[in-house]
Protein backbone atom coordinates (compact mmCIF):
# COMPACT_ATOMS: atom_id res chain seq x y z
CA UNK A 1 0.00 0.00 0.00
CA UNK A 2 1.25 3.41 -0.96
CA UNK A 3 2.17 5.86 1.80
CA UNK A 4 2.74 9.62 1.58
CA UNK A 5 4.96 11.14 4.26
CA UNK A 6 5.56 14.84 4.74
CA UNK A 7 8.98 15.86 6.10
CA UNK A 8 8.55 19.03 8.09
CA UNK A 9 10.26 21.03 10.83
CA UNK A 10 8.95 24.51 11.38
CA UNK A 11 12.41 26.03 11.49
CA UNK A 12 14.42 26.33 8.30
CA UNK A 13 17.91 24.91 7.85
CA UNK A 14 17.54 21.84 10.07
CA UNK A 15 17.99 19.38 7.21
CA UNK A 16 14.48 18.60 5.90
CA UNK A 17 15.57 18.43 2.28
CA UNK A 18 18.63 16.31 3.08
CA UNK A 19 16.53 13.95 5.23
CA UNK A 20 13.89 13.70 2.45
CA UNK A 21 16.55 12.89 -0.15
CA UNK A 22 18.38 10.37 2.02
CA UNK A 23 15.31 8.47 3.20
CA UNK A 24 14.19 8.27 -0.42
CA UNK A 25 17.54 6.90 -1.53
CA UNK A 26 17.72 4.44 1.39
CA UNK A 27 14.25 3.05 0.60
CA UNK A 28 15.02 2.90 -3.13
CA UNK A 29 18.16 0.88 -2.31
CA UNK A 30 15.82 -1.51 -0.45
CA UNK A 31 13.94 -1.98 -3.72
CA UNK A 32 10.94 0.25 -3.00
CA UNK A 33 9.51 2.53 -5.65
CA UNK A 34 9.90 6.05 -4.27
CA UNK A 35 9.09 9.57 -5.42
CA UNK A 36 10.30 12.74 -3.75
CA UNK A 37 7.96 15.71 -4.14
CA UNK A 38 9.36 19.18 -3.67
CA UNK A 39 6.60 20.82 -1.65
CA UNK A 40 8.67 23.96 -1.21
CA UNK A 41 7.16 25.61 -4.27
CA UNK A 42 8.86 28.87 -5.11
CA UNK A 43 11.88 28.20 -2.86
CA UNK A 44 12.65 24.76 -4.29
CA UNK A 45 15.96 23.07 -3.43
CA UNK A 46 15.31 19.34 -3.63
CA UNK A 47 16.47 19.34 -7.27
CA UNK A 48 19.83 20.81 -6.21
CA UNK A 49 20.17 18.33 -3.34
CA UNK A 50 19.50 15.42 -5.74
CA UNK A 51 21.80 16.87 -8.46
CA UNK A 52 19.02 16.81 -11.07
CA UNK A 53 18.59 20.56 -11.58
CA UNK A 54 19.92 20.41 -15.16
CA UNK A 55 17.63 17.52 -16.14
CA UNK A 56 14.28 19.16 -15.37
CA UNK A 57 12.00 19.51 -18.41
CA UNK A 58 8.65 20.02 -16.70
CA UNK A 59 7.81 20.85 -13.10
CA UNK A 60 4.77 20.72 -10.84
CA UNK A 61 3.59 24.09 -12.20
CA UNK A 62 3.38 22.58 -15.72
CA UNK A 63 1.22 19.72 -14.37
CA UNK A 64 -1.19 22.22 -12.85
CA UNK A 65 -1.29 24.19 -16.11
CA UNK A 66 -2.05 20.91 -17.96
CA UNK A 67 1.11 21.30 -20.06
CA UNK A 68 2.19 17.76 -19.14
CA UNK A 69 1.05 14.72 -17.18
CA UNK A 70 2.37 13.90 -13.69
CA UNK A 71 4.49 11.03 -15.05
CA UNK A 72 6.04 13.24 -17.75
CA UNK A 73 7.13 15.64 -15.04
CA UNK A 74 9.08 13.05 -13.01
CA UNK A 75 12.87 13.17 -13.17
CA UNK A 76 14.57 9.80 -12.61
CA UNK A 77 17.40 9.65 -10.06
CA UNK A 78 17.88 5.89 -10.39
CA UNK A 79 15.75 2.90 -11.46
CA UNK A 80 13.12 3.20 -8.73
CA UNK A 81 13.64 6.71 -7.35
CA UNK A 82 12.08 9.77 -9.00
CA UNK A 83 11.81 13.45 -8.17
CA UNK A 84 8.80 15.66 -8.83
CA UNK A 85 10.47 19.05 -9.03
CA UNK A 86 8.87 22.26 -7.84
CA UNK A 87 8.81 25.45 -9.71
CA UNK A 88 10.06 28.93 -9.26
CA UNK A 89 6.53 30.19 -9.96
CA UNK A 90 4.51 31.76 -7.18
CA UNK A 91 3.50 29.20 -4.57
CA UNK A 92 -0.03 30.59 -4.44
CA UNK A 93 -0.69 29.48 -8.04
CA UNK A 94 -0.93 25.83 -6.93
CA UNK A 95 -3.95 25.12 -4.79
CA UNK A 96 -4.20 22.54 -2.01
CA UNK A 97 -6.72 20.51 -3.99
CA UNK A 98 -4.45 20.41 -7.05
CA UNK A 99 -1.55 19.32 -4.87
CA UNK A 100 -3.66 16.57 -3.25
CA UNK A 101 -4.77 15.36 -6.69
CA UNK A 102 -1.12 15.09 -7.80
CA UNK A 103 -0.23 13.06 -4.68
CA UNK A 104 -3.22 10.74 -5.29
CA UNK A 105 -2.03 10.22 -8.86
CA UNK A 106 1.49 9.33 -7.62
CA UNK A 107 0.01 6.80 -5.16
CA UNK A 108 -1.08 4.69 -8.12
CA UNK A 109 2.58 4.03 -9.01
CA UNK A 110 4.80 4.49 -5.97
CA UNK A 111 5.28 2.70 -2.64
CA UNK A 112 6.52 5.81 -0.84
CA UNK A 113 5.90 9.48 -1.54
CA UNK A 114 8.05 11.88 0.47
CA UNK A 115 6.94 15.51 0.49
CA UNK A 116 9.65 18.03 1.30
CA UNK A 117 7.71 20.64 3.26
CA UNK A 118 8.60 24.33 3.29
CA UNK A 119 9.71 25.95 6.56
CA UNK A 120 7.11 27.82 8.60
CA UNK A 121 3.43 27.11 9.17
CA UNK A 122 1.92 29.28 6.46
CA UNK A 123 -0.28 28.27 3.50
CA UNK A 124 2.46 26.29 1.71
CA UNK A 125 2.95 24.20 4.85
CA UNK A 126 -0.77 23.38 5.03
CA UNK A 127 -0.82 22.44 1.34
CA UNK A 128 2.10 20.04 1.80
CA UNK A 129 0.59 18.45 4.92
CA UNK A 130 -2.84 17.99 3.31
CA UNK A 131 -1.23 15.64 0.79
CA UNK A 132 0.27 13.39 3.48
CA UNK A 133 -0.83 10.29 5.39
CA UNK A 134 1.98 10.58 7.93
CA UNK A 135 4.46 13.22 9.09
CA UNK A 136 8.07 13.19 10.16
CA UNK A 137 9.31 16.21 12.09
CA UNK A 138 13.00 16.97 11.75
CA UNK A 139 14.80 18.93 14.43
CA UNK A 140 18.35 19.64 15.49
CA UNK A 141 19.28 19.62 19.21
CA UNK A 142 19.18 23.42 19.38
CA UNK A 143 16.47 24.95 21.57
CA UNK A 144 15.06 27.20 18.81
CA UNK A 145 14.69 24.22 16.50
CA UNK A 146 13.09 21.99 19.16
CA UNK A 147 10.67 24.77 20.08
CA UNK A 148 9.54 25.14 16.46
CA UNK A 149 9.24 21.35 16.16
CA UNK A 150 6.89 21.41 19.15
CA UNK A 151 4.75 24.13 17.55
CA UNK A 152 4.59 22.17 14.31
CA UNK A 153 3.62 18.97 16.15
CA UNK A 154 0.75 20.88 17.77
CA UNK A 155 -0.43 22.13 14.39
CA UNK A 156 -0.10 18.64 12.91
CA UNK A 157 -2.21 17.13 15.69
CA UNK A 158 -5.19 18.93 14.14
CA UNK A 159 -4.76 16.94 10.93
CA UNK A 160 -5.93 13.36 10.58
CA UNK A 161 -2.44 11.94 10.17
CA UNK A 162 -1.91 8.26 10.90
CA UNK A 163 1.48 8.84 12.52
CA UNK A 164 3.86 11.58 13.63
CA UNK A 165 7.51 10.70 14.03
CA UNK A 166 10.66 12.55 15.00
CA UNK A 167 14.15 12.55 13.48
CA UNK A 168 16.88 14.38 15.36
CA UNK A 169 19.51 15.60 12.95
CA UNK A 170 23.07 16.67 13.68
CA UNK A 171 23.35 15.07 17.14
CA UNK A 172 26.89 15.26 18.48
CA UNK A 173 27.58 12.36 20.82
CA UNK A 174 30.71 13.98 22.24
CA UNK A 175 28.83 17.13 23.20
CA UNK A 176 26.07 15.09 24.85
CA UNK A 177 28.67 13.15 26.88
CA UNK A 178 30.37 16.46 27.75
CA UNK A 179 26.95 17.72 28.83
CA UNK A 180 26.98 20.70 26.48
CA UNK A 181 24.12 19.40 24.33
CA UNK A 182 20.63 18.14 25.21
CA UNK A 183 20.33 14.40 24.62
CA UNK A 184 18.02 12.78 22.05
CA UNK A 185 16.07 11.19 24.91
CA UNK A 186 15.42 14.59 26.56
CA UNK A 187 14.33 16.12 23.23
CA UNK A 188 11.97 13.20 22.58
CA UNK A 189 10.49 13.55 26.08
CA UNK A 190 10.01 17.30 25.65
CA UNK A 191 8.29 16.90 22.29
CA UNK A 192 6.33 13.75 23.26
CA UNK A 193 6.80 12.29 19.80
CA UNK A 194 7.90 8.87 18.63
CA UNK A 195 11.62 8.92 17.85
CA UNK A 196 12.28 7.35 14.43
CA UNK A 197 15.99 7.90 14.50
CA UNK A 198 19.02 10.05 15.15
CA UNK A 199 21.38 11.30 12.45
CA UNK A 200 24.79 12.08 13.92
CA UNK A 201 26.82 15.17 13.17
CA UNK A 202 29.59 13.88 10.97
CA UNK A 203 32.51 15.09 8.90
CA UNK A 204 31.30 12.66 6.22
CA UNK A 205 28.18 14.68 5.58
CA UNK A 206 28.11 18.27 4.36
CA UNK A 207 25.26 20.55 3.42
CA UNK A 208 23.08 18.66 0.92
CA UNK A 209 25.13 15.44 1.12
CA UNK A 210 23.23 12.44 -0.13
CA UNK A 211 23.99 8.96 1.10
CA UNK A 212 24.62 7.58 -2.37
CA UNK A 213 27.82 9.66 -2.26
CA UNK A 214 28.80 8.48 1.24
CA UNK A 215 30.85 5.51 2.32
CA UNK A 216 28.54 2.62 3.32
CA UNK A 217 30.40 2.35 6.63
CA UNK A 218 29.88 6.02 7.51
CA UNK A 219 27.66 6.87 10.49
CA UNK A 220 25.06 8.95 8.54
CA UNK A 221 24.70 6.18 5.92
CA UNK A 222 24.12 3.62 8.68
CA UNK A 223 21.68 5.82 10.59
CA UNK A 224 19.57 6.73 7.52
CA UNK A 225 19.33 3.04 6.67
CA UNK A 226 18.07 2.21 10.17
CA UNK A 227 15.35 4.87 9.85
CA UNK A 228 14.39 3.63 6.37
CA UNK A 229 14.15 0.06 7.66
CA UNK A 230 11.75 1.18 10.40
CA UNK A 231 9.60 3.19 7.98
CA UNK A 232 9.50 0.10 5.78
CA UNK A 233 8.00 -1.98 8.58
CA UNK A 234 11.04 -3.59 10.24
CA UNK A 235 11.73 -3.33 13.97
CA UNK A 236 13.07 -0.04 15.24
CA UNK A 237 16.79 0.41 15.90
CA UNK A 238 18.12 3.82 16.88
CA UNK A 239 21.70 4.68 15.97
CA UNK A 240 23.82 5.10 19.10
CA UNK A 241 25.33 8.51 18.42
CA UNK A 242 27.41 8.45 21.61
CA UNK A 243 29.12 5.12 20.83
CA UNK A 244 32.08 6.63 18.88
CA UNK A 245 32.83 8.91 21.85
CA UNK A 246 32.71 6.33 24.63
CA UNK A 247 35.67 4.44 26.05
CA UNK A 248 39.05 5.49 27.44
CA UNK A 249 40.86 6.04 24.12
CA UNK A 250 38.02 8.04 22.57
CA UNK A 251 37.86 10.24 25.69
CA UNK A 252 41.63 10.72 25.53
CA UNK A 253 41.50 11.62 21.83
CA UNK A 254 38.80 14.18 22.48
CA UNK A 255 40.75 15.72 25.38
CA UNK A 256 43.83 15.96 23.17
CA UNK A 257 41.90 17.57 20.32
CA UNK A 258 40.35 20.25 22.59
Amino acid at each position, binding site marked *: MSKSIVITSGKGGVGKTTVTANLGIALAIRGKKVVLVDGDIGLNNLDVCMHIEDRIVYDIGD*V*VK*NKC*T*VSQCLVPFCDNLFVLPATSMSASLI*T*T*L*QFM*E*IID*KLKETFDYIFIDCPAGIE*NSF*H*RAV*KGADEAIIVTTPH*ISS*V*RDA*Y*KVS*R*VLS*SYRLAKQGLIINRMHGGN*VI*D*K*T*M*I*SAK*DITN*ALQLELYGVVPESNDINLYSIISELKPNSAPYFSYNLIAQYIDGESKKIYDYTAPYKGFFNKLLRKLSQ
Partner: protein
Amino acid sequence: MKKEPKGNLLRLRQIILSDDINIPNSTVEILKTDTKNFFNNHFKMDNNSFEMHISVDDDGFYQVNLNFKAMDMYDIKVIK
Protein backbone atom coordinates in the same frame (compact mmCIF):
# COMPACT_ATOMS: atom_id res chain seq x y z
CA MET B 1 32.62 27.99 30.94
CA LYS B 2 30.57 24.88 30.12
CA LYS B 3 26.82 25.25 29.79
CA GLU B 4 24.81 22.77 31.80
CA PRO B 5 22.47 20.74 29.54
CA LYS B 6 20.04 20.47 32.44
CA GLY B 7 19.90 24.26 32.36
CA ASN B 8 19.19 24.11 28.61
CA LEU B 9 16.58 21.41 29.17
CA LEU B 10 14.89 23.46 31.86
CA ARG B 11 14.93 26.48 29.54
CA LEU B 12 13.41 24.38 26.74
CA ARG B 13 10.65 23.11 29.03
CA GLN B 14 9.89 26.66 30.20
CA ILE B 15 9.72 27.91 26.59
CA ILE B 16 7.38 25.08 25.56
CA LEU B 17 5.15 25.62 28.58
CA SER B 18 5.01 29.35 27.90
CA ASP B 19 4.14 28.69 24.23
CA ASP B 20 1.35 26.39 25.37
CA ILE B 21 -0.14 29.09 27.58
CA ASN B 22 0.24 31.83 25.00
CA ILE B 23 -1.44 29.92 22.17
CA PRO B 24 -4.57 28.55 23.88
CA ASN B 25 -6.78 28.93 20.79
CA SER B 26 -4.46 27.33 18.25
CA THR B 27 -7.08 24.77 17.22
CA VAL B 28 -9.46 27.55 16.29
CA GLU B 29 -6.68 29.32 14.39
CA ILE B 30 -5.88 26.13 12.45
CA LEU B 31 -9.56 25.67 11.67
CA LYS B 32 -9.66 29.21 10.34
CA THR B 33 -6.55 28.69 8.19
CA ASP B 34 -7.86 25.37 6.85
CA THR B 35 -11.28 26.79 6.03
CA LYS B 36 -9.71 29.85 4.41
CA ASN B 37 -7.40 27.59 2.35
CA PHE B 38 -10.33 25.44 1.29
CA PHE B 39 -12.38 28.39 0.04
CA ASN B 40 -9.25 29.89 -1.56
CA ASN B 41 -9.18 26.80 -3.79
CA HIS B 42 -12.59 27.66 -5.17
CA PHE B 43 -12.85 31.44 -4.95
CA LYS B 44 -10.67 34.40 -5.75
CA MET B 45 -11.07 35.70 -2.23
CA ASP B 46 -10.52 39.01 -0.60
CA ASN B 47 -8.47 37.42 2.20
CA ASN B 48 -8.77 40.47 4.43
CA SER B 49 -12.53 40.08 4.47
CA PHE B 50 -12.44 36.53 5.85
CA GLU B 51 -14.11 36.19 9.24
CA MET B 52 -14.91 33.07 11.22
CA HIS B 53 -16.67 33.08 14.55
CA ILE B 54 -17.17 29.96 16.60
CA SER B 55 -19.52 30.08 19.54
CA VAL B 56 -21.67 27.71 21.56
CA ASP B 57 -25.42 28.31 21.54
CA ASP B 58 -27.88 27.83 24.41
CA ASP B 59 -28.53 24.19 23.40
CA GLY B 60 -24.81 23.38 23.57
CA PHE B 61 -24.26 23.20 19.80
CA TYR B 62 -21.29 24.85 18.13
CA GLN B 63 -22.37 27.68 15.91
CA VAL B 64 -19.91 28.52 13.15
CA ASN B 65 -20.42 31.75 11.26
CA LEU B 66 -18.38 32.32 8.15
CA ASN B 67 -18.18 35.52 6.17
CA PHE B 68 -15.95 36.54 3.26
CA LYS B 69 -16.01 38.45 0.00
CA ALA B 70 -14.94 36.87 -3.28
CA MET B 71 -14.23 38.48 -6.63
CA ASP B 72 -14.56 35.30 -8.71
CA MET B 73 -15.24 31.55 -8.57
CA TYR B 74 -12.75 29.15 -10.17
CA ASP B 75 -13.51 26.30 -12.59
CA ILE B 76 -12.71 22.85 -11.22
CA LYS B 77 -9.81 21.37 -13.21
CA VAL B 78 -8.72 17.75 -13.23
CA ILE B 79 -5.05 16.77 -13.05
CA LYS B 80 -4.06 14.37 -15.85
